[in-house]
């Protein structure tokens, strides 16, 4: 019994992705000594935390059969507007963070409204939202001369309780909650049902509209959280700070074995997927080659790893 269970785990996509990450780390530390240093690996995981947070919401959305193209803009909005909200009254800085998260959750909720009620295709809705937010950013960018001096944000970006970066701790906490919500609650079960067959889900009494709303709101929330973290890590928000996270979040989700068609997948795969992405990026950085070759190497690595881990299951 136990043996079979272990075997299933060993064969699962999340584990495979994790194994690949480990293999890449070991191989890379032979090539370049510093790469495998504890500090470096810790830094990579810290970087992965940002992608991981954005990809948490993205995983929800993708499993529910949608996609969120507004995550990058939401990260930027979060990181840029937080300094504007940091008023002095609250010494911890928590109020401002909560306010920003409320804002980004609302943005996600609006995405959800468009998808669930207006029945706009998720890609169109979130793309349009990203465009709106660009307009918003023109208005708020550079609007303040006050540097981010939010203690909570600083702590998140720089503190290392027990030697572990606070961002990584945040990611662990979020991961636990996400995995629980996804696989241990009825909300999670509805998510998969909506993604696999929305019609059958509706006829089975699943509240499709409210679940969809919740899913996009979650994506807004986690993107907002990622924005706060990335602000802390860089000490400064700027327009464009979220840009790398759109493709990265989608790639992490898909590399982790979640089907882009919805209905199948797990955040447990996204986690190593995110680490894998930053690892490859770091690997490419230390390789001495022209930009063209580096880009080719990056693509080939992803493709190669995909061959190892990622056959798509047949459908329909």
């Amino acid at each position: 019994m136990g043996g079979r269970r272990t075997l299933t785990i060993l064969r699962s996509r999340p584990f495979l992705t994790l194994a690949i990450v480990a293999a890449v780390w070991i191989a890379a530390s032979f090539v370049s000594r510093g790469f495998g240093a504890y500090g470096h690996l810790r830094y990579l995981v810290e970087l992965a935390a940002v992608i991981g947070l954005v990809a948490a919401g993205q995983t929800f959305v993708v499993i529910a059969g949608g996609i969120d193209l507004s995550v990058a803009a939401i990260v930027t909005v979060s990181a840029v507007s937080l300094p504007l909200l940091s008023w002095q009254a609250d010494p911890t800085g928590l109020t401002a963070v909560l306010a920003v998260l409320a804002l980004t959750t609302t943005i996600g909720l609006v995405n959800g409204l468009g998808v669930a009620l207006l029945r706009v295709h998720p890609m169109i809705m979130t793309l349009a939202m990203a465009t709106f937010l660009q307009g918003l950013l023109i208005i708020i960018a550079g609007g303040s001369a006050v540097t981010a001096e939010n203690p909570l944000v600083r702590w998140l970006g720089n503190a290392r309780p027990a030697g572990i970066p606070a961002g990584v701790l945040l990611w662990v906490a979020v991961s636990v909650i996400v995995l629980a919500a996804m696989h241990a609650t009825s909300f999670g079960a509805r998510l998969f049902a909506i993604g696999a067959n929305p019609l059958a889900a509706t006829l089975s009494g699943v509240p499709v509209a409210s679940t969809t709303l919740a899913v996009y709101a979650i994506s807004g929330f986690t993107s907002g959280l990622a924005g706060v973290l990335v602000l802390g890590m860089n000490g400064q928000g700027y327009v464009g700070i979220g840009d790398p996270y759109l493709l990265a979040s989608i790639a992490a989700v898909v590399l982790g074995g979640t089907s882009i068609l919805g209905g199948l997948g797990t955040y447990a795969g996204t986690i190593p997927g995110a680490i894998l992405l930053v690892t490859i990026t770091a690997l490419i950085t230390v390789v001495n080659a022209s930009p063209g070759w580096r880009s080719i190497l990056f693509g080939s690595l992803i493709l190669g790893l995909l061959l190892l881990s990622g056959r798509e299951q047949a459908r329909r």
Partner: protein
Amino acid sequence: MLATAPLLAARGVSKSFFGNPVLRDVSIALQPGRVHALLGENGAGKSTLINLLSGALRPDGGAIEVDGRPVSRMTPAYAQQAGIAVVQQELSLTASLSIAENIGLGAYPRRFGLLDYPELAVRARAACDLVGLDEPLSMPVGHLSLGRRQMVEIAKALYRRPRVLILDEPTSSLSATETKVLTNLLERLRGERIAILYISHRLNEVMALCQHVTVLKDGTCTADRSLEGTDANELVRLMVGRDPGDLFPRWQASALAANAISVRNFSAGLMRDVDLDVRTGEVLGIGGLVGQGQEDLLLGLYGAIPARTASATVNGALGLPGGVPKANALGLAYVPADRKREGLHLIHSIITNMMLPAFARLPALKLRSRRAERETARGLAAQLGIKGDLGRPAQALSGGNQQKVALAKWMPHHPLALLLNDPTRGVDVETKREIYMMLRNFAAAGKAVVLLSSDTPELVHLCDRVAVVREGQIVAMLERGALSEEAIVSAAMGAEHQKVAA
């Protein structure tokens, strides 16, 4: 007889999926001018066998022979060249293409290498005429009802002018009239010395139409013989392995005076201004030709499509539910006809499918108990005779077993009124019997059942009353005493009769 080699034959074929044997050493030979029945319970391996015969799957062992010669590598393309055509269960159509384009798919007439639309139109029209399809050829298949799609699938097979015609449950979603058209057609094709393999769970059809029968049980062949001198009971015995009882449970009056559902001037989809009372303790049948609005009636009551009504009471609550979760809360449950599209999550496990209504109504953040879910699912599986690992995806189940899952998922919630859309489509006799039993018991417990069915005997023998729908109206409400197949069919066809008279 002996001199002619069979047009198509399987010799000792075996097939397993992921180590589970589905067919073991099965042989079958299709002779020209003969309608050959293939019988067996759900999951016996019938569809798998025809997939081997038509090259859609490769056998693990044994051989497929065409005209007595073994074919080394059977493929769908080769089968097509050899004049073998298969009527899949609605499976091979593309919704966005027109009827004609679907019919010709994979075998288009060509001119200068390009699709010859005029020629396609002529040949597709001819095929449609054979099966009585009068919709415009340019209509996208996605706009057709299930029954009409089935006719397109048959026309698609005929279009290929087959020597061997294989039909996998062609009548399961056809109305009585359409079935009649099909049986006449098959008689004619048999006269043209075409070999026909016919799969159906409706034994009366088999008895009327077929000359020879092969029976599968658990993947092995338990009979291969002429149908002459065999009766239906005998066939059931061969399929099930024991003596059959009566298919329909004995009818007992159990209807109470109370109304479970009551609507006035109800309109939804095609249905216009109908009045309907569903009593507690009764099985109310809904009959009529396919596509007259029956389905909209159920969906409207269930809150799945917008509906209007002058007044409505549903299980004591005033007004229509107006949404599926609300309808569920009022004790309504709906089992759709198209289980693959509407009833199931094919890529998810059987357990998850069975538990979905529970997930839908539990508080969103309530923690799940995998163990309790497994227990419940095991109970349901045992109750409905669904065998095997419940962790498999639902798509690995045979059609009939999928239907059982679609029905089973509502059972733990003790609905007060069941809305059923053709629940026995493609279901084997044993399961049918179980489902009928369940429905009667359900009614006897004082609950209401609304049974939309294309299987007229089912309406006659199982229902307390039958509402016959035509052109969005209930044109007749036949009480138990007045129920007969003729009565239902003539009420359903009323319009045509009148038109002819006028």
